[in-house]
């Protein structure tokens, strides 16, 4: 395997990691409006992700940095091509990031309400936008020979299929987050999270089915081997259905594991569909941007590979340890055990 292919996979892994982890952070953020009845519950909910959300967001930062370093053309083409959408993404991530810190420190209910709204918006918009990005990347964007994207915001980027993709990302984040809440809380809140998860899970299934049907049509022309694409979609469906009995038996842990697998499959599907390209050109007669054309030189990739192979296990090690430290359920704003 070439180093550029290794980095394509690694960036896929970083995005998978981002949605697996930050996915439930987004879901918990949404639950502060959809699930919480009062300030106490809101605090408990936020506290479930308090120690981890920032580190989870670093997966995205790292993915962006890795794109820049390993595929300068991919980074430059996509980030400038999605300019306006990225501005929205950044604004959302900014207000969400400070809301955790700001909401507690203010003087009034109104103040807290304002930052709660920021938290909610900042939790629902990013997954939606990522669903739109990944979908439209596979659909193809109008690009000139110098890899400059001149996309219409409505049409090329935002269209029925990509909006459905965004909705799937939002729903999956929410369900993933509700199962996470089920694992981290007790009593009434846990029970309600679970009841809501059941309803949302059904909706997630329906929207996913419509979306994936449309998505397969868009992705098929890109595939040398259609069976792989069908296999990915089937895997998504299988994990969806495996979760059902667990869901009925009130097993949040197993359900959470399954939505995690659905994230892995869903995000991987885009990388499988794109491979060996990184940006699809919707203009007839002009080539796609392939990962080989987008990649950095071998020397640079080799150095980066050494760093990644050394650092990723260490990072994973202390990340897992930190989840172990915060393994206990949260009761009334205070954890069990003290």
């Amino acid at each position, binding site marked *: 395997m070439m180093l550029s292919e290794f980095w394509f996979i690694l960036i896929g892994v970083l995005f998978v990691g981002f949605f697996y982890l930050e996915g439930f952070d987004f879901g918990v953020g949404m639950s502060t409006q959809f699930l919480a009845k009062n300030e106490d519950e809101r*605090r*408990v909910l936020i*506290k479930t992700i*308090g*120690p*981890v*959300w*920032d*580190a989870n*967001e*670093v997966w995205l*930062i790292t993915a*962006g*940095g*890795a*794109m*820049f*370093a390993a*595929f*300068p*053309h991919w*980074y*430059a083409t*996509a*980030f*400038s091509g999605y*300019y*306006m959408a*990225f*501005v929205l993404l950044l*604004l959302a991530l*900014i207000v969400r*990031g*400070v809301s*955790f*810190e*700001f*909401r*507690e*420190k*203010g*003087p009034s209910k109104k103040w807290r309400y304002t930052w709660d709204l920021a938290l909610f918006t900042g939790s629902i918009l990013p997954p939606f936008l990522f669903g739109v990005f990944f979908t439209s990347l596979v659909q193809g964007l109008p690009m000139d020979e*110098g*890899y*400059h*994207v001149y996309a219409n915001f409505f049409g090329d980027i935002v269209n029925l299929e990509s909006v459905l993709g965004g909705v799937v990302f939002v729903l999956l984040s929410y369900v993933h987050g509700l199962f996470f809440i089920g694992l981290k809380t007790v009593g009434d809140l846990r029970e309600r999270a679970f009841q809501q998860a059941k309803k949302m899970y059904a909706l997630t299934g329906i929207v996913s089915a419509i979306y994936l049907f449309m998505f397969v049509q868009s992705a098929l022309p890109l595939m040398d081997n259609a069976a792989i694409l069908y296999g990915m979609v089937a895997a998504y469906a299988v994990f969806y259905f495996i979760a059902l009995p667990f869901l009925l038996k009130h097993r949040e842990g197993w359900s959470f594991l399954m939505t995690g697998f659905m994230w892995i499959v869903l995000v991987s599907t885009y990388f499988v569909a794109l491979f060996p390209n990184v940006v699809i050109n919707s203009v007839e007669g002009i080539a796609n941007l392939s990962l080989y054309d987008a990649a*950095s*030189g071998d*020397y*640079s990739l080799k150095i*980066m590979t050494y760093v990644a192979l050394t*650092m*990723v296990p260490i*990072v994973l090690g*202390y*990340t897992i340890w*930190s989840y172990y*430290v*915060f393994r206990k359920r949260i009761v009334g*704003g205070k954890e069990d055990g003290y």
Partner: protein
Amino acid sequence: MMEEVFLARLQFASTTLFHFLFVPLSIGLVFLIALMQTLYYFKKEEIYLKMTKFWAIFFLINFAVGVVTGIIQEFQFGMNWSEYSRFVGDIFGAPLAVEALLAFFLESTFIGIWVFGEKKVPKWVHLLSIWLVSLGTILSAFWILVANSFMQNPTGYRLANGRAEMNDIAAVLTNEKLWVAFPHTVYASLATGAFFIIGVSAWYIMKGRHVEMFKKSMTLSLIVGLIASLAIAFSGHSQATYLMHAQPMKMAAAEGLWEDSGDPAAWTLFANIDVENRESTGRIDIPYLLSYLAYSEFSGKVEGMDTLEAKMIEQHGEGSYLPPVKTVFWSFRIMAGTGGVLIVIAALALWFNYRKTLEQKTWLLKLLVLSIFIPYISNSFGWIMSEVGRQPWVVNGLMETATAVSPNVTANQILFSLIAFSTIYAILGAVMVWLFVRVIKRGPEAPPKANVEATDPFDQGGAAQ
């Protein structure tokens, strides 16, 4: 295209300067907080724990704003400077990716452990966590300066495939610019943190609130502040000698020196820079000093902008290779001047502190409160000098700024994002200052809030870092 370049530069400059209001305070504060917690760990005196927790409130608010404003930094190379990103990604992207892997994961994970895990991990692990956060912030500064140093003084690359490709990582990491800029930046950050604590403590001492605790904070920070501000001057001097041979145009612009200097070269304290007629009038010169700044000895002449530009035209073709001279000239003076003031203030305060008379010197205490802002001025103008002095290049000698922007992003789009980011940043800045003032007024004695947590940074109900 001119409009796009202007707007993109304005956006990059404003978002970066804003981001760098928070970064140095985070780096400096967390180091001092880690020192306080270490003192608590070994001395077991409650007062050090109280100090640790009180200063942590500021650090955590500041850190949050620093984190979110940092995300834009990572994204806007690709968004606004796509041609730059294509040209340098091979060598410039790597340090950014490494920064995330090495520094961002470290600081974000261990800040979570530190804030929420006090009762869940052994005491030594808790202490280690804050030191790892401190290490993370310093590593982050290092790797971003690796990237910036390439823009200032490209090393370790070859031109191939129409871009700069890395071919020698050792040369990238031993870039002379890096090793003068990194210490300078870290010392400046320590001074920023130290003067923040000094100023706030001075206010409490004047008010007679919690005097013991804030005297301890004051003494510790004065020591760190004096050492740091002296070190800033020394590392600043090494920056100047570096500039002389690596970026002489920036140096000449910082001096307002059009024609070659005499030997020995005099340093211009003030002058009226006349860019149109290419001369500096009304100069107040200090003999020998420029030779000393440039070569660490009292002889040697310095080339002026006329000579340097002629050389560049010969090398790169017709064009203007002058940076905005006035901006560079005055930024340098503001940076160095305020830096000097820091040394004087820290030395004076430490002296009276040693004599145990600082408490009675109300004028000095008031000055210390005001001095909170001085490092911010130095930091900002230092970066303005450094980055504006690099113009018209985005990568010194290799790529001009005007060719680096994204051709597919329109002026209107940049205008929109510029307004959007500026608005949100203005709100964040105002909220943060307001929160700081609120926390200071309340003081460490604030009663716990209804639902416990909020005043205790180690156990905040839901507040993240």
